[in-house]
């Protein structure tokens, strides 16, 4: 799969995305993040009901040789966790934006989304880092 960054998502500079629908955010990691990590072997999800805070880690994903903190792009309360990814971690590599979603969160401060990047802005950031 080639690198791609869907336009309907917002991005956090630490390589996380959010899809916002009716005050609820779905979070995951970007194509860049899963590529850098390598094949994901383990996902340790937070509990349903746990609080997440923008810019802070809410979970970890592991490859064989690395551990990565997953950063919350927005704040809120976890309403659902993707058990399928716990079972089959490679979903994060195969399909980071749909089947590979990590948590659903009831957003506590939707206004925070203004600080996030558009797909284009995120891609610009990646080019600059190279």
């Amino acid at each position, binding site marked *: 799969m080639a690198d791609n960054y869907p336009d309907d998502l917002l991005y956090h500079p630490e390589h996380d995305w959010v899809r916002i629908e009716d005050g609820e955010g779905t979070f995951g990691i970007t194509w860049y993040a899963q590529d850098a990590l390598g094949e994901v072997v*383990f996902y340790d999800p937070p509990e349903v009901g746990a609080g997440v805070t923008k810019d802070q880690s809410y979970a970890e994903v*592991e*490859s*064989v*040789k*690395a*551990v990565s903190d997953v950063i919350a792009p927005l704040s809120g309360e976890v309403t659902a966790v993707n058990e399928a990814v716990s079972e089959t971690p490679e979903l994060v590599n195969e399909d980071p934006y749909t089947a590979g979603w990590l948590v659903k969160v009831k957003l506590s401060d939707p206004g925070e989304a203004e600080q996030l990047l558009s797909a284009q802005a995120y891609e610009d950031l990646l080019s600059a880092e190279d």
Partner: protein
Amino acid sequence: MTRYTSATDADREQMLAAIGASSVDELFSDIPAGVRLDRPLELPAGMTEQAVYERLAELASRNTGAEDEITFLGAGMYDHYVPAIVDSITQRSEFLTPYTPYQPEISQGTLQAMFEFQTSISELTGLPVASAGLYEGPSSVAAAAYLARGATGRPKFLVSRGLHPHSREALETYSAGYGTSVEDIALAGGATDLAALEAAVDDDTAAVFLQQPNFLGSVEDLAALAPVAKSTGALLVVAVDALTLGVLRPPGDFGADVAVGEGQPLGNRLDYGGPSVGFFAAREEHIRRMPGRIAGETTDVDGRRGFVLTLQTREQHIRREKATSNICTSQQLNALAATIYLSWLGRPGIVELGELMTQRTAYARERLAAIDGVEPLHSRPAVREFAVSLDAPVDGVLRRCAADGINAGYPLGHDYPEWPNGLLIAITERRTRAHIDLLADALERAVAAERAGTTEAVNA
């Protein structure tokens, strides 16, 4: 002096020329003068191999080992017979000289040996997952504590007074870093006091530590203790003597979360206390918090069965400050010795060995209990070790026995002040009935002499 280098003057010249330096000293020019050592090291001049051997042999001659006396010393390490195949295999270059299997394609020997050790320990302890080993017994107890603290977030460890004193001390030392506290659970009749445990275990308890058999040699009633230990959500850690697991029900059967232990009795030398190996086994749910290397089975690109280090993200080289342990080098060669030994003993052998030790221990206890001035400390079941209390100064008794060529055991008073003349006696397959009879005779004479206050000179 002996050299293990090959560089001749001609080699040095050529190498310096290639480097573009005029002297070896120039390669150190970035070391500031203020920290350069401006004199030779004040150490004796290097010796020939022959001289080194003679010096080390001279030092060895001033040690009284198990070859020189009949020893009943135990307390965590035991004089077992190590078969010759252990040395012949562990001395092979291929096992002795490589390092950690970071390149699995050329380390299948080491990785498979680790996998076999893990299997052996899992079998013995009755727990499904085991790592490839830690340093030794007491620090493995401390490692289990780190796991329990991480898993529960609680600050307190409850430790039976039946736990090896060195394990308890290590737990205290490590607790300074963990930010945890250690509380004792009393013994009653030579075993962990169930009522005391029940009273102590609470929501702050991260783990309860028991030893099987305990330090005084008695077999603990794990069936009764385990449910109480775990009743508030604490983990149960059992430090177990692996060689008793031919006869004793393993900790896994009783719901232990973690089983650890000192691996020296498994095919490793006494070596004045080390190196040996610590084993660590746990329930499946704890696998990601386990310390130590773990070898896992897999296949290669051509479908061949092989082994690799697995779950490395637990370890320091990846997870760094969040690692499950800081351990890097462990005791792989000693784990290999243990694996070979356990294969040599085999399924029937470990059972027979356990039965042999149990019968001889019972015989020894009876013979010693019959001596005037010797009282068993407890009457609980025992496999290979038991404790008595003397009605005479234990140090004097030990000195007299030593003069007869017998090391009668370990004096308990330092660790258990309630038994100032307590003595811990260990039995292995090397201590025959004849040895036990000699011990009984020597002890009888020594106790009588000490009681009588005999002042004849005794060679220490």
